[in-house]
């Protein structure tokens, strides 16, 4: 095993009015280092001006997603050892505006998340005396979609989002489904309103890369297709049986 490896890191510093460029760093190669450890090494010992986000280093906070050799990954879960001999190219997540270096602007996601009402909607709120019942099977219906850590890898992998920034996108639709399929929730039709317009789920052409890159196996692509089936059924039901009520 070689004892050094080169990282080619994307640099962008708007204050200098400079164009983006790649900077090479040679770092020691350690068996148990992930990409993030290498970046921390650069930050501490070679170049303090490199900016990136990170926090938990255990794949749950969702901060450290980047493009590594053109694939979106969580850098805390990508061992350097698997990228030998390098050089390893590290870029900010694709499809997002870059604030600086490896830091992307993800405010668009938060705006979209709010639009699909990601909270329990009840016809009436019950007092907090007793839990709502939910069997393990009912929990299993939506559990997968509740695992999203908002790491933005799916947005980065989604060409539709790259082409049409209006597109609501994989994670947000999966999270809408997370609530739709929760037996405690009655907000399906309110969310359908937000998602059935042009920027909603109908934009998705099922490329499927979002599900491939998801570190938590949320399967947003599946969530979107199921939502389309549901949306189409609802549309026909409203057309043919306008008096029937949706959940």
């Amino acid at each position, binding site marked *: 095993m070689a004892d050094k490896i080169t990282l080619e890191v994307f640099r962008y*510093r*708007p*204050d*200098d009015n400079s164009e983006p460029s790649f900077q090479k760093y040679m770092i020691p190669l350690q068996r*148990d280092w*992930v990409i993030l450890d290498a970046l921390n090494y650069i*930050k*501490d010992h070679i*170049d*303090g*001006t490199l*900016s990136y*986000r*990170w*926090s*938990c*280093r*255990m*794949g*749950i*906070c*969702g*901060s450290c997603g980047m493009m590594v050799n053109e694939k979106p990954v969580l850098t805390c*879960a990508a061992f350097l050892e698997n990228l030998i001999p390098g050089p390893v190219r590290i870029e900010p997540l694709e499809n997002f505006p870059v*604030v*600086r270096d490896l*830091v992307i602007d*993800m*405010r668009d996601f*938060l705006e979209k*998340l*709010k639009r699909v*009402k*990601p*909270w*329990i909607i*009840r016809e009436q*709120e019950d007092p*907090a005396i*007793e*839990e*709502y*019942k*939910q*069997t*393990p099977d*009912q*929990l299993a219906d*939506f*559990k997968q979609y*509740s*695992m*999203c*850590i*908002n790491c933005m890898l799916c947005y980065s992998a989604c060409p539709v989002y790259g082409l049409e920034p209006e597109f609501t996108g994989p994670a947000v639709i999966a*999270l809408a489904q997370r*609530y739709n399929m*929760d037996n*405690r*929730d009655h907000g399906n039709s309110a969310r359908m309103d937000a998602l059935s317009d042009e920027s909603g789920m109908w934009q998705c052409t099922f490329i499927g890369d979002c599900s491939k890159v998801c570190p938590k196996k949320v399967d947003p692509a599946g969530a979107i297709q199921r939502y389309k089936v549901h949306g189409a059924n609802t549309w026909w039901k409203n057309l043919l049986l306008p008096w029937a009520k949706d959940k």
Partner: protein
Amino acid sequence: MDHISYESDVLIIGAGGAGLRAAIAVSEKDPKLKISIISKVYPMRSHTVSAEGGAAAVIKDNDSLDDHAYDTISGGDWMTDQDAVEIFVREAPKEMIRLEHWGCPWSRQKDGKVAVRPFGGMKKKRTWFAADKTGFHMLHTLFQTSLKYSQIQRFDEWFVTRLLVDDGRCQGAVALEISTGQIAAIKAKSVIICSGGAGKVFPFTTNANIKTGDGMAIAYRAGVPLKDMEFVQYHPTGLPFTGILITEACRAEGGHLLNKNGYRYLQDYDLGKPEPRPVLRSMELGPRDRLSQAFVQEREKGQTLEGPYGDYVHLDLRHLGKKIINEKLPFVRELCLKYENIDPIKEMIPVRPVVHYMMGGIDTDIHGATALSGLFAAGECACVSINGANRLGSNSLTELLVFGARAGESAANFALNQNGSSKGLDFLYKNELKRLNKQFLNRTGGTEKIVDIRKAMHHVMENGAGIYRTEVALSDAQNEIQELKSKFKNLRISDTSKTFNTELVGSLELSCLLDIAESVIQSALFRKESRGSHQRSDFKNRDDANYLSHSLAYRNKNGAPEIKYQPVAITKWPPGERIYGK
């Protein structure tokens, strides 16, 4: 430089579990109140996300509030305020049900009711859990629910540098917008700090990179005392290199801790007899401090294993079998596979004690109020105190909810009784602008590197204020921290950019860490007894006659901590002995 200011009724610093719960509480109290939440990271990045095991609240018929209270108080080695604990256990079930109503995907029984699991130091099963990602699900549920309230305004990725205190009350904060480098005054009628702990003063910690004690430090600098800072909880089972936590649930499901001879060494430390099945409050399910201390003693006997990242012992789950591990502990298996390349179904997991939680923090009463009028605190950054000398596992997530909500309600009431802000705020803001520009933003020269000071601090804390402490080691540590503080004045910041300058943020965090480290050492130095997580080799016994009281670290004029004491509130559980394994 532009002068920018924002106005709101309640300002919340920190957007983790406690901050979000507080924000919802304020929103519900009076929808007219305008709320600002400021956090140095996006809410879903907050460290609450990493909590695995669960949250305790009495809900089953065979359990009782008094049982929960007693477990908490004895677990805390009688340093807990019993009035606070009584409120805590009483309000816990309601808070947990509310979170359930907001959609938290709690694991369930077949009949659809919430399931509970056993946890270390608990006599009854009362830990609610969402598989082994409880904190993650709680945080995302709270965050997503908070999106419902349009009166909540978020300042994502802003770093608070100072509280605005004028006319004897806290009226907001000055904060740096990380993405642009602009510094603004955020004025408010009341302020709640929910900024989490400060595990990053230590080298081996389960804590995320963001846990640098910023909120504790700014309160401390504003004259608010930090309470019980000497009590630092080690989690007995972290992965050696990364500090990643391997949840107590592993042991609750029946995992064994083994020394290098494959022997369940806990039986040698008054923690009960080894049984094949897990027994509550016994052996591997004993309290965290006792387990961590047993590790150190075992190491002194030469019975631990040696690895590239220090000594360790083994956590053995193999006998549980594939089915139980995959069903009950899937995240643990995922972590081991992804970060240490170990499969717990086939191999033993190397573990060591790692700093996990700070029992101490900003001194508050049972309403979350601090000594400074208009300033409230909740969560790990606060010390109410329900955790005493050693926090009971799975109480911290519940604490976020109970005291987050209480602090929110108190801050809302306080704000409703205030008129505008006082005139002096603009002057204070301008002063802070000057200070930041001089010390950080326009800094030139300097030779000391952030990483060197940080590493030196880690070394000082590990050696001087670790699991076992002595007068000599603590005094040395205090001197060394002073040296590091003067080195900090000569810090070199190579990055001059205004845009997302993480080196700038790192140096602001480091200044907070040094203040916290100093207060931990000083509080530990003054407590000449052993109690809970605070173990003095030179004072081996608990000393209720002299030390059944909370330490309060005040910052004096020279910036050094001064220790005072305040009695522990005892209601109905007189100090007794902590007995486990019987």
